[in-house]
C-alpha cells in the first residue's frame, strides 16, 4: 500500500506544481508587459470546492478531552474526570471513493492521590500522589462523505490498543501497573478545508475498553470494570 500512496502523492504533487507553473505569469517580465488585465474576482468562499480524485494523505495533530465512563473511580482518587489528551496520526483518504483509513495515537496523563473508600462510600484521600497515564493507538476505517463542499463529514470504526500505566509514590517493585488492552471504537467527525493543504476538523469517538479496571483499587471497590469512554478532539491536518 505504501508505495502506491507515495506514487500517487508524487503524481498529484507534480500535477499541481505543473499546473501552477502554467497558470502563473512570469514575474520577471511584468515590467515590460502591458498592464495586466485586472485579476478575476476571488471566488466566494462559500463556493463549493472542486471534487478531488485520487488517494489523499493527511497527517494530523489533535487535542481534545476524554470523558471516561468510570467517573466514580476517577473521582475517588482525585483524578480529573475530563482529562485532556493530545496526539496525532495519519489518514489515507479516497482509497475507494469515500473510504478512508487512519491511524491515530492519543495520550493523556493526570495526577490524583491514593484513597480509601469505606463501605458507606466515603472517600478518604491519603495524600500519596498517583499518576495515571493512558495512550490509545486506534486503527480506523470509515467513509468520508466528500462532495464539492469544503465541509466533509465522516464516520468510522476500528480497533486498537489501550496502554495503561499507573504509578504512585512509595511503589515497591511490582506495585505499579503497566498493561495493554485491546480496544474498539466508533467515530464520527468532520473536516473543513481551509486551504489547499490545510484542514481543520472535529471528531467524536467512543471507545470500548474491556478490562484494565475492576481487578483492584477503587475501581474494584466501586465495581467499575470497563475503561470505556468518549473523546472529543479538535484536529489540524496537512495533506491533500
Amino acid at each position, binding site marked *: 500500500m505504501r508505495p502506491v500512496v507515495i506514487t500517487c502523492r508524487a503524481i498529484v504533487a507534480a500535477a499541481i506544481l505543473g499546473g501552477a507553473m502554467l497558470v502563473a505569469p512570469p514575474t520577471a517580465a511584468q515590467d515590460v508587459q502591458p498592464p495586466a488585465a485586472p485579476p478575476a474576482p476571488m471566488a466566494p468562499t462559500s463556493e463549493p470546492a472542486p471534487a478531488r480524485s485520487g488517494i489523499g494523505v493527511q497527517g494530523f495533530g489533535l487535542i481534545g478531552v476524554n470523558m471516561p465512563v468510570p467517573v466514580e473511580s476517577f473521582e475517588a482518587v482525585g483524578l480529573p474526570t475530563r482529562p485532556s489528551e493530545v496526539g496525532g496520526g495519519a489518514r489515507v483518504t479516497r482509497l475507494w471513493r469515500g473510504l478512508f483509513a487512519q491511524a491515530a495515537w492519543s495520550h493523556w496523563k493526570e495526577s490524583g492521590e491514593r484513597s480509601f473508600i469505606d463501605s458507606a462510600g466515603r472517600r478518604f484521600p491519603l495524600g500519596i500522589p498517583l499518576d495515571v497515564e493512558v495512550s490509545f493507538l486506534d486503527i480506523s476505517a470509515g467513509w468520508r462523505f466528500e462532495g464539492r463542499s469544503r465541509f466533509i463529514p465522516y464516520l468510522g470504526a476500528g480497533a486498537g490498543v489501550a496502554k495503561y500505566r499507573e504509578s504512585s509514590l512509595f511503589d515497591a517493585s511490582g506495585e505499579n501497573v503497566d498493561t495493554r488492552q485491546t480496544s474498539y471504537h466508533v467515530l464520527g467527525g468532520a473536516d473543513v478545508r481551509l486551504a489547499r493543504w490545510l484542514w481543520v476538523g472535529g471528531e467524536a469517538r467512543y471507545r470500548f475498553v474491556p478490562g484494565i479496571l475492576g481487578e483492584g483499587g477503587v475501581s*474494584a471497590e466501586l465495581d467499575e470494570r470497563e475503561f470505556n469512554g468518549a473523546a472529543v478532539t479538535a484536529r489540524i491536518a496537512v495533506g491533500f
Partner: protein
Amino acid sequence: MRRLVSTLAAAVVAGVIVIAQDGPQLQTPGTPAKWPTGQGAAAVFEGLRTTPLERLAIDTTGLADALPEYWATDPVTGAQYRRDEVLVRFREGASPALRARALAAVRGREVPRVLPGNWELLTVEAGVDAREAAAVLAADQAVEEVALNYRVTAFQKRPNDEYYRLQWNFELIDLPRAWEINSGATSDVVVAVIDSGLNVASGTFVFTTGFGLLAFPFARVPDLVEEGRILAPYDFVYRDETPLDLDGHGTHVAGTIGQLTNNNLGLAGVAYNVRLMPLRVLSGWDTALTPGRSAGTNSMVSEAIRYAADHGAHVINLSLGGPGDAPVLREAIRYAVDRGAFVAIAAGNAGDKGNPVQYPAAYAADIPGAMTVGAVDRDGKRAPYSGYHAYVEICAPGGTVRDETDYERGITQVGYNQALTLPRLTAPEMRLLLLLGFRPRFDRFEPVPFQGTSMATPHVAGVAALLYSQGINDPRAIEEAIKRFARPIDATTEECGAGLVDPRRALRGLGLTR
C-alpha cells in the same frame, strides 16, 4: 534475717511503721493518698538484662564499621566519610616515583584496593584526616581526581534506636516501609492508654499505705515522656493527675505506641510522634500498699474511656479485660466511637486456659470503630495464649516469652528494671516483701520482653494513629481499612479475624486499579 532486722530498725527510727493489717486503710479526709516530695530521682535507662547479642545470634556484621572513630563529618555537606580513607585517581602516565611522592605527602599508608576506573582506595595513617589529605592530593600534579570515601546508607527507613534490633515485631508487620509513607503520625493525634499508668513526673512520691507512709522514687520514662507529649493524664485510682505506673504494664504498652524513635536511644514506637494520654485504672504495687483502694473495675475503666473521648483522644488502647460482662463498658466504648475515637481492645490471654469469653473484647465485633486484637508469635502464628472467638477481628505481634530475658521472642519495650520491681508477684508476696524492707524503684528502666494480647493491642492502636494522621479520620473507616488491608495468615478467622495488621498496605490505600 539481717536485712529484715535492719529494715525494721530503720522503720522504727523513722517513726512511720504501722502494724500491717488486712482490709482497707481508710484515708483521713483531706489527706492525699500520694504526694511528691522533692525532685529526687533521675531516670536511668539501663542495658539489656543479659548479653543478648550472643544469645540471640544477631548479625553483628557492620557493627565495627559503625564505631564512631571510623567516621568523620564533612562540615559542608554533613555527610559522613571514612576518616582514614581517600579515593584517588592518578593521571595517566604518572610515574611510580610521582605517585609515591604524592602518597608520602599525605602519609598514605597503603593502597588496599584498586577500583574500576583506575580509582585507588588509599589508607592514610592515624592522625591524618582524610579531608586534609584529599586537599593535598588534589593539588598534586600527578593526581587527576580525588574524593572522600563517603558513607551511604539504605534509604529504607529503619530507626537508629539502640535496641531496635530487638523489635522483630515491627519487622513482622512491615512497619519500616509503613514509616516511609507516614513517619510515626503527628502530634495532633492523641492516643489514650488506659492501663497501669505512665510516669509523667519525676520525684520521690510518698504513699499513705497500710504500712504507714512509704516513699518511692519515680522518674519520667526516658525516651517516651517528654515536655508537651502528655495530654490530660489522670489517675483514676488515686484521683489525681499523676498516673504513676506502679507496675510497668502501662509503660510497656505506651512505649509500643509512642516510644520516641530515631533518636539513637532505647527502642522505637509505632506512632512515635503522637501525644499520649495516660489514664491509670490498673494497680501494681499499690495492690499491696493500699489494698482497699479499688482498681481495675469496669466502672473505673468505663469512666476512663469516657474521659478519654471527652478530652480529645483519637485512639484509645485497652490492653485489659476480664470474664465479667459489663454493659457499662460496652456503652462507654460506643460513646467513645461516636465521638470519633477508635478503640483497640485486647482479646485476652486465656486461649490456652479454657478460652473463656472476655470483656470488653467481646463487645468490639458489634461496634464498628472498635477492634479486638489477638496475638501472633514471631512466626506469625497465633500465640497459644491468645483468645480465639468470633469477636477477634485482627492480629498483631504479641510474642511468646520463656523468661524475662527472652528478647528473641518477646515484645521488647521500655520497662522498669525487673530486679527492682519484681513483676508478677501476688499481693501477699508484695506485702511480705514490703514488710521485709524491700522497696521497689520506679526510676530504673531497661528493655523488657513481655508477651500477651496486651502487647499486640498497642500495635493496632499505633497503626490506627498512623491512619488517622494519614487522613482516615473516622474510627469506623479506620477499622474497615485495617481489616481490608490485613495480611492473610495461617489462622482461622476466630483466631485472627481478618489476618495480621499490615500498616503499609493500609496507609497506601487504593489506586485506580491497584
